[in-house]
């Protein structure tokens, strides 16, 4: 049963990624193009030779982007289904669809929004080559801490809800999570490598597009996985049949 859940999670992730790709193509790619044009103009002004194109821009913006987003969707779809398998009827007595939606929201916060608050997505031309090691380490450390914070908040919230009730327990868990995010993000080093003359509008729209495509991905993943999971959890199916 868990194997089937995992497969359905990856299928839901791939479907979500396809829609997310459409969003990225419409809203994200124009900003990537503008940022690359800025970078090329800066290089030309400095008298540097243009960077050689190993993979053409056309391929990067179509097949490359599609491949990357599909791999990302399949990966998080898989992780999502495993978390779902653990959380179902343990975290809360919710139906498969409601649990999937709740977890999709938590997944978006954990894997996207909380890390992005500290280390936001950056377009090409932002970021120095020498600091890629530090930036990658800090980014993945932030994602890891974000996962830990979400787990702590959910477990504390659930434990408290037995004592002070569902609503108060949830509020306490969320409040604890916010405090932990603030402490962790205050402790990690700041990284800001946006060139002084980089257009603010391109930066803002790029980040909007980046977070927008993640909202598309996670919401579709939650809705589709909930519907698919319902069919492969035998007990809910039989109960649903009995009550209908």
């Amino acid at each position, binding site marked *: 049963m868990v194997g089937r859940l995992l497969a359905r999670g990856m299928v839901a992730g791939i479907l979500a990624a396809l829609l997310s790709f459409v969003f990225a193509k419409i809203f994200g790619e124009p900003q990537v193009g503008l940022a690359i044009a800025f970078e090329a103009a800066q290089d030309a002004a400095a008298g540097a030779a243009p960077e050689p194109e190993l993979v053409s821009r056309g391929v990067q913006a179509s097949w490359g*982007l599609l491949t990357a987003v599909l791999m990302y969707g399949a990966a998080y779809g898989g992780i999502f289904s*495993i978390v779902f398998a653990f959380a179902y009827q343990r975290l809360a007595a919710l139906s498969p669809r409601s649990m999937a939606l709740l977890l999709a929201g938590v997944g978006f916060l954990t894997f996207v929004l909380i890390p992005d608050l500290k280390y936001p997505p950056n377009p090409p031309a932002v970021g120095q080559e020498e600091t890629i090691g530090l930036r*990658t380490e800090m980014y993945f450390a932030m994602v890891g801490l974000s996962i830990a914070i979400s787990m702590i908040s959910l477990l504390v919230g659930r434990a408290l809800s037995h004592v002070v009730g569902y609503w108060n327990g949830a509020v306490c868990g969320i409040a604890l999570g916010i405090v932990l995010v603030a402490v962790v993000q205050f402790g990690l080093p700041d990284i800001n490598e946006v060139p002084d003359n980089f257009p603010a509008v391109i930066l803002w729209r790029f980040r909007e597009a980046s977070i927008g495509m993640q909202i598309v991905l996670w919401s579709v993943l939650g809705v589709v996985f909930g519907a698919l999971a319902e069919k492969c959890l035998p007990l809910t199916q039989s109960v649903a049949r009995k009550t209908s």
Partner: protein
Amino acid sequence: MMKTSVQAVLPVSAAAGQSIPVRAILPWAVFGLIVSALLLYFVGAEQGATSLISGHEVHEFVHDGRHLLGFPCH
């Protein structure tokens, strides 16, 4: 008799529900997390901070996705 009719009135979410045993999840969890981590590694970090395959082709191919999905790049 009385009990079953009460259960039937309850929403599916409250009436249904049996968690999946942890020992049934664990092997799939290990397998799923390894596959997912590999996929994310190639999208997010290969030929950036670290490299398993030499050159820049993988990085350049997923370049736009890496930027838009929020991974550090260049």
